[in-house]
């Protein structure tokens, strides 16, 4: 069976799910199953088949599972949003069509993803500009204290969703080039005295720092990991050039914390960068330095940026009296909704979201859509969704491993990692693993920018995949 036929068969259960999901929601709402549900399923299947035929024509060898997985997630999102608000679902369906157009447009426009390397600085500059846009007066819009959106007339738009793609493209290209020079042979064992100096001095400095600043456990661990990683990096006789990109991207991430004030996006970008850095260099020490610098910077900023500090406080104790009815309301309600779902959930269409004018699950269609899913489909439904993302990540990383050249590998890795990180940041926020921030759940959450950007991400992955697998077949590796 060819890859494309497998893809087509993968789309069938997705359409059934859409039809069944809409049927369930409509059934609880009107107590009768209208033909509308079959129509929804058929239209969704039709759109996906069209996209499939397009892939068949343009990218015949691309990974057969990525597109059905994306469609599955989008279908789950449509059903959940329909359940929250039929009007929003109609808009989301329109955005899904727009996303499919962008998906096809990307594939038409970028026949070979290597052309992106030529424009990498332009792409990087454009991405940073996009990130800063929401702070510009007139078009910027503040949501929950974070600057993530801009408003152009009636359309609200989240530039960070697109900036994340641009920055990954830039980093993949940049690290492909500099990754090799970042890695140099390690030092041979030094003579006794120098050995002592290399390890002893930093250890003493770390100890002094911990004692002098009276750091807590978290702070001490940070300092120790940082110093240990730094020593490991120094053993490779680095030139200042080594720290250039690291410092630059770290600075960028910190700037993002200050400029757009969103810990979640910042974590997502920087995490994506560290993932790429690790894949490019294979040096954990660099990751250690980077990660500790990020956490240290966040701690410092958290103390000085009230918005970030507030988010952290809510995360630590959302049920505190006075907090639970105010800033902590959203996360507390998210946890209550999940507790209400239990193992099997209450069934589609049964979640309590709005009561008169009292919002029980604020931002249910965006931030808290995962809580709605746990409420309606239970722990099993949620595990299914996370499983789907894990499969998506698996196929993404598989694509990266099959790819022949460094840029393709890094691009596929970066795109996959940033998507998986985004899932972790928002689901982790909703389940109180980390502070809750306002990023979307890829393909599932309501939001035009999100769905369009993720369809473009999917298109880029498929382009890389098609190249990798075609080459593999030429070499006779894949039958």
């Amino acid at each position, binding site marked *: 069976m060819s890859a494309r036929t497998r893809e087509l068969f993968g789309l069938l259960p997705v359409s059934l799910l859409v039809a069944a999901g809409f049927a369930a929601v409509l059934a609880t709402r009107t107590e009768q199953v209208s033909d509308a549900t079959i129509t929804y399923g058929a239209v969704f299947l039709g759109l996906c088949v069209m996209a499939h035929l397009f892939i068949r024509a343009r990218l015949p060898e691309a990974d057969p599972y990525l597109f059905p997985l994306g469609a599955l997630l989008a279908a789950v999102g449509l059903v959940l949003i329909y359940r929250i608000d039929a009007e929003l679902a109609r808009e989301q369906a329109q955005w899904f069509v727009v996303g499919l157009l962008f998906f096809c447009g990307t594939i038409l426009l970028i026949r070979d993803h290597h052309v992106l390397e030529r424009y990498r600085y332009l792409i990087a500059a454009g991405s940073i500009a996009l990130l800063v846009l929401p702070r510009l007066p007139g078009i910027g819009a503040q949501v929950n204290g974070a600057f993530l959106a801009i408003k152009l007339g009636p359309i609200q738009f989240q530039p960070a969703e697109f900036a994340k793609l641009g920055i990954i493209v830039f980093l993949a290209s940049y690290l492909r080039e500099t990754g090799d020079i970042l890695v140099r042979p390690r030092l041979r064992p030094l003579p006794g005295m120098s050995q002592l100096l290399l390890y002893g001095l930093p250890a003493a400095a770390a100890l002094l720092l911990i004692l002098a600043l009276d750091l807590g456990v978290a702070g001490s661990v940070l300092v120790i990991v940082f110093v240990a990683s730094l020593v490991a990096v120094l053993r490779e006789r680095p030139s200042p050039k080594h720290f250039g990109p690291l410092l630059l991207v770290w600075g960028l991430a910190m700037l993002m914390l200050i400029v757009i004030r969103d810990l979640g996006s910042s974590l997502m970008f920087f995490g994506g960068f560290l993932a790429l850095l690790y894949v490019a260099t*294979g040096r954990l020490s660099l990751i250690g330095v980077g990660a500790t610098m990020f956490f240290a910077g966040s701690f410092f900023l958290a103390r000085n940026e009230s918005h970030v500090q507030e988010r952290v406080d809510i995360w630590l104790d959302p049920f505190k009296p006075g907090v639970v*009815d105010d800033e902590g309301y959203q996360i507390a309600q998210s946890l209550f909704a999940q507790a209400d779902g*239990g193992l*099997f959930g209450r069934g589609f269409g049964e979640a309590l979201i709005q009561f008169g004018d009292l919002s029980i699950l604020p931002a249910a269609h965006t931030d808290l859509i995962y809580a709605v899913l746990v409420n309606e489909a239970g722990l099993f439904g949620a595990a299914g969704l996370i499983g789907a993302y894990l499969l998506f990540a698996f196929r993404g990383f598989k694509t990266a491993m099959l790819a022949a050249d460094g840029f393709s590998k890094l691009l596929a890795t970066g795109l996959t990692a940033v998507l998986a990180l985004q899932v*972790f940041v928002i689901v*982790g926020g909703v389940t109180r693993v980390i502070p809750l921030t306002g990023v979307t759940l890829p393909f599932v959450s309501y939001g035009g920018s999100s769905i369009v950007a993720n369809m473009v991400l999917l298109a880029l992955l498929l382009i890389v995949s098609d190249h990798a697998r075609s080459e593999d077949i030429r070499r006779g590796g894949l039958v």
Partner: protein
Amino acid sequence: MNTQIRQLYGLFALLFAVLIGFTSYWAVVDAQGLEDNPDNRRKLIEEQTIPRGLIYARDGNTVIARNRSRRRGDTRIFTREYPRGGTFAHPIGYSFIENGRRSLELTDNDFLVGEENEFESIFSGLEGRDQEGKDVITNLDVGGTQAAVAGLAGRKGSVVAIEPQTGKVRVMVSIPEYDPNQIPSNFRQINRDPNKPLLNRSTQELYPPGSTFKVVTATAALDSGKVTPETIIDGSSPKEISGVPLENSGGQSFGPISFTDALTNSVNTVFAQVGEQIGRGTLVEYMRRFGFYEDPELDYPDFQMIPSGIINGDGDYVEDGFDVGRVAIGQGGLEGEIRSSPMQMALVASAIANGGRLMRPRLTDRVVRKDGRVAERIQPDLQSQVMKPETAEQLAGMMSRVVEEGTGTAAALSGIQVAGKTGTAEVGEFREFTQPWFICFAPVENPRLAVAVTLERQPAGSQGGTVAAPIAKSVLEAVLGGGG
């Protein structure tokens, strides 16, 4: 590079496992804790959107509590409404979001909201059923209740009537009552009313039971074999009891008299001597068997019940050290005075009527689904075997005499033999008020109803036999005459 990519995939698998782990924690492991969190208003809101089950009287026809629906946003919510006003306020109570719940509305809440466990709710989910409340059919008798309310005629007091073989509570009236429909708008005012309309005098108030307690003393004396109905005891008055002279009612002196005649004429001196003869331990033992010293085992909220028993001047329950002679006739002193709720005295009558077998009192008869299927039927349940059946038979005979020719003739029914006991306790600082009592059951051969009636702080001279007995009679007529 592929090694690193593989490791990266492993890292994400780990991170996603953490997400599943946390989701499991909130959705399953700590779900109960979150549901009980006072800031979690989901249950409260959801219960408002579920049509709560109706509450019916025993006939399955008379609606005591129903719902009124209105819209809030695009959800339909239900509020409670009580078409019978205050008549059933004390047994049924109320249920309002702002004011909480009381009485049977609280005890039977799980039935009324149709509470289901996880697996039941999967099935109802598969069948496409919404959660809906189940109806509760109570044991309450409309005619008996109306007769009790009419009999008390606005005087503070209580009437409790129980079916002896089953423990079904037919009547539980407490005056003053409150209108549960007024609770949302007027709760503060009702709560502060000096007449305490929210207090259920049947289960929440203790009164000196007076001579009706002689039935308990007689039970202990007969069942323990200390006396027989024919035993002759000196009934002269006054008689020194615990070093203080005790007089019969009106100072009447009876001379040697049979135990049966002593009950018929409610002779204090005889019962005080019998009390001293059986002793404190035996008396307390029989009281415990009747259910004294514990909340009645009624399907009713704990906070709305109080144990009957012997209470000293400090308000503590005591089982020793009291003047047993005076407690035996329904009085006492600072070391211990007998106090009983009307519910407890109804249970005493009920146990004797049922051959000594005390059945757990029940307000709920059955729980019915909306489609008519019975979800749960409350079965009669033995609480304790208080006395031997022969003792109960002897007591029934003795109590019949009270109604035939003694102090309780006002409760006599034509064609139906009634057994009863009157009581009149003197209360108030200067003994200027009385607490009239009457407990009874009928028909004697095959008792179908046991009744306790008492009135609070009546003007001096009001006797149990003249004030309380007629009320018991009209309740008996209403319940038994209506075809039982």
